[in-house]
């Protein structure tokens, strides 16, 4: 079974990124559900897509329930939130430190990963907040989230010995600053009416290249929080802004402040007869499932995953990279790799750089 991958090709000319293409070879896996009973589909989804199995399972159950109950439902799922927190911790404690040549906190990650997998309610317990205070942020998550002004954040970023501050200043010191970013459209917080009006029916073609009102859009922590004043102030430092958004989201999750748009938000509603849709916010962004039943069997099943939003060929990746100056091929490779990490694909990816030396 080939799970497919993203192939990212970058052409550099005259010291700039001149062109970038993204091609995905991911299979249309939801097809395996066609013709099954609704119960079989709901059983199979979390088994097959076990990487974010909780979110996938909740989405399948919610889409089916919306058909049967014919009612709108919105709730917070503690299991999906804890699953997302594990992903955020992994990126923040292991992946970003490795990328920036800092010390990864593998043992801490392993310990918290196992605690959260066994007991999702540990997400909002005092021990995890203490851990974040002592071993990641250098201050209590609540107080850290109050660093809403750029000056306060800069002071923390410059002076704190905390690992997260080291991540931020190391990323900063590596030329993240960019004065003329092309705007990246963010998927807004969606309500059921908007979603039903704009997308009456989801299709496999849409799932491959999703768009919001005609534009490829970014989803995930940064998109969910991009109206935050600190993130707005960091807009010309796109990688830092996305790293900080993830830190903010982790901090907010541990405080149980689920009124915000956070991973774990689940919304489901019926569409036409026999068709139900669920929207689940996951670590990487919006996950949508749409189930269509005909005589009790799956007539269509469409899954729109966050990676297809964030790695749309005309989406956030080219917007963040096109035109960026790169002094050398290794510098271009580093910039592309970090931008991919900031957008966080859930499939394998391959980066090819075609470097044409400046004359």
């Amino acid at each position: 079974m080939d799970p497919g991958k993203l192939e990212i090709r970058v052409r550099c000319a005259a010291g700039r990124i001149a062109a970038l293409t993204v091609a995905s070879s991911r299979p249309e896996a939801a097809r395996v559900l066609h013709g099954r009973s609704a119960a079989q589909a709901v059983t199979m989804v979390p088994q097959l897509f076990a990487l974010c199995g909780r979110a996938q399972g909740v989405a399948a159950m919610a889409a089916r329930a919306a058909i049967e109950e014919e009612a709108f439902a919105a709730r917070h799922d503690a299991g999906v939130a804890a699953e997302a927190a594990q992903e955020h911790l992994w990126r923040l404690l292991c992946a970003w430190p490795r990328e920036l040549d800092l010390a990864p906190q593998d043992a801490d990650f392993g310990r918290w990963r196992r605690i959260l997998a066994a007991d999702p309610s540990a997400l909002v317990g005092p021990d995890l907040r203490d851990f974040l205070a002592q071993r990641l942020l250098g201050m209590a998550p609540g107080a850290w989230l109050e660093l809403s002004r750029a000056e306060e954040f800069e002071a923390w970023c410059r002076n704190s010995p905390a690992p997260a501050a080291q991540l931020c200043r190391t990323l900063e010191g590596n030329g993240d600053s960019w004065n003329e970013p092309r705007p990246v459209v963010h998927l807004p917080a969606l309500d059921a009416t908007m979603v039903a009006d704009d997308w009456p029916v989801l299709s496999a073609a849409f799932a491959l290249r999703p768009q919001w009102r005609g534009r490829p859009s970014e989803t995930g922590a940064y998109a969910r929080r991009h109206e935050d004043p600190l993130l707005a102030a960091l807009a010309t430092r796109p990688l830092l802004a996305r790293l900080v958004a993830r830190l903010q989201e982790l901090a907010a999750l541990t405080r149980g402040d689920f009124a915000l748009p956070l991973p774990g938000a689940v919304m489901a509603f019926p569409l036409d007869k026999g068709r139900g849709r669920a929207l689940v916010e996951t670590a990487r962004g919006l996950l949508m499932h749409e189930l269509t039943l005909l005589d009790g069997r799956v007539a269509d099943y469409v899954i729109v995953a966050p990676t297809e939003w964030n790695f749309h060929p005309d989406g956030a990746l080219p917007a963040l990279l096109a035109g960026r100056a790169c002094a050398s091929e290794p510098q271009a490779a580093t910039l592309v790799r970090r931008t991919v990490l900031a957008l966080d694909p859930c499939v394998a990816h391959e980066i090819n750089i075609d470097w044409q030396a400046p004359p």
Partner: protein
Amino acid sequence: MCLGIPMRVMECEGVFAWCEGRGRRERLNLLWIGEVQPGEWVYAVLGQARERLDEQRARQIDAGLDALEAVLAGRTEFDPYFDDLLRPD
């Protein structure tokens, strides 16, 4: 959505383990799940053992992947694959 595969631990090497599944042999990082013993089943995604599996769940996921391969290859007679997958836990 991100597809992983069930693999069986063959040999442990500190924070890594050599594992086999679906015709592949791979050295997996154990960061997510901690120590394992030869013979245990894990769910493998992009070089990481992401979850421990019991043998039945490993078989169910395997059956689901068989079904998916059959569908993607254009075969429609895949009911047998589902028997195992849908057996109640």
